[in-house]
């Protein structure tokens, strides 16, 4: 689905890899390694200084930016909801493409395990966990082919984080989504991912199956990272 060829964008240097459809990829590595930068390259919130990125076989620049961003949904670390109600937030993406009438807002809340009574709730009255669920539902409302998740549970307490994990686990399974998630939580990585990309010092150090990488790291950098 995505192919990165020799991509450089500080702090990343010459990173190459391919993501196939329905891959559940966990991106991990030390802080400042360029994980979020890499995520932003996927839906063109940033462009690489060097190298090429291909999406569904074509160079990423050949896809109209707005429709690419719709297909490659991003959930940020903090929910960053828009002022208004939950419904306003769910509508935002589809309304940009005149597709809101084809969506079922109740179904969207169901995906993230929230009752439909939440639709009329003002977003500033929601808890952190609820806001993150709405943020996830807002991205899903665009019916993306791929889901990018930038540490979606890092700002939440353990209990709420596990709830969100439950939501993600069943969602990815049901929707057959391709997923790329940044996380520092290796337990979460094991639970949600089937493939891992370990980035350190701006370079891709390891690419493999999550259990293999975590149980038997093949590079010194990854062993050190896991020991921390």
């Amino acid at each position, binding site marked *: 689905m995505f192919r990165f060829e020799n991509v450089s964008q500080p702090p990343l240097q010459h990173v190459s890899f391919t993501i196939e459809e329905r891959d559940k990829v966990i991106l991990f590595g030390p802080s400042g390694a360029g994980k979020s930068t890499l995520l932003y390259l996927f839906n063109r*919130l940033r*462009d690489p200084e060097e190298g090429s990125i291909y999406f569904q076989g074509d160079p990423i620049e050949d896809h109209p*930016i*707005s429709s690419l961003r719709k297909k490659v949904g991003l959930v*940020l670390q*903090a929910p960053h909801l828009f002022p208004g109600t939950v419904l306003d937030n769910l509508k935002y993406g589809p309304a940009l493409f005149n597709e809101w009438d084809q969506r079922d807002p109740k179904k969207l809340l169901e995906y993230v395990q929230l009752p439909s009574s939440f639709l009329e709730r003002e977003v500033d009255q929601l808890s952190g966990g609820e806001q993150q669920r709405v943020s996830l539902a807002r*991205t899903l409302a665009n019916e993306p082919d791929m889901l990018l998740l930038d540490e979606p549970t890092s700002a939440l307490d353990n209990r709420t984080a596990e709830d969100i994990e439950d939501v993600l686990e069943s969602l990815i399974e049901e929707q057959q989504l391709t997923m790329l998630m940044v996380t520092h939580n290796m337990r979460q990585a094991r639970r949600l991912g089937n493939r891992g990309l370990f980035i350190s010092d701006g370079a891709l150090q390891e690419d493999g199956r999550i259990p293999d990488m975590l149980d038997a790291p093949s590079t010194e950098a990854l062993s050190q990272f896991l020991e921390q």
Partner: protein
Amino acid sequence: MSPEISNQSLLFLIVFVLIPLSLSYFYQLGMSKSILWSSIRGTVQLFAIGYILTYLFDLPPGVGIPLMVGIMLIIATFHARQKGKELPHVLPVIFSGLLIVEVSVLFMWLAFDMVEFAPSEVIPMSGMVIGNSMVAMGLSLERMKNEFKQNNGQLLAALSLGAEPKQASHLIVRNTLNAALIPNVDRIKTIGLVQLPGMMTGLILGGVDPVMAIKYQLVISLSIFSSVSISAMFVTIFMYRYFFNEHKQLIESEEEMESQRS
């Protein structure tokens, strides 16, 4: 009857300078030099502008008005620009905004016979309109920059969902305009109740009938109200786009913004 202030009386104004000066001395505020300098500078500036205005008022309106309004527009443009120096095309945007505001207000005044096309009327009133518009533009630029910084996450969220820069910055444009308009609405609401507006006070002191003074004040207050609104809207609507690059990406560093200027 219009009161005359003699030069001797004027000399006693030094008392008003001595008070803050002695305050600065006793409390060691270290402001004596700037108090003295600003008082002298202010006095010289005012006398100079007094002589310039006397000269301009004697010129035919077709010469005096464009000359002085032109100078005011240029000075106001450079002053307002200070608040958004790093933004591309800020100078022409501010200048055209101020020019449009001034020309439309002047057109209204003359078309509906509110003001006579004489330097003694048009120049001071234009000064008030341009001055207030300049402040509104500067504040809007500053506010907009802050809004972009504070709402970075929301902007990224909107863009990542496929929003165009215009759609993504809708909230910021709304907040900026709100901030620019609210103080004006409040000022108009309390006009005459909290303080007598400057122009009206000046006219009454100059011997004009209070009702006539109020009519002039209304003309200028409402003109300023609308100019400030147009100025804030103009600068916000024309400048938000420079916070994005041509790939609908948010420009996050000043260096990147600098590179957009070329």
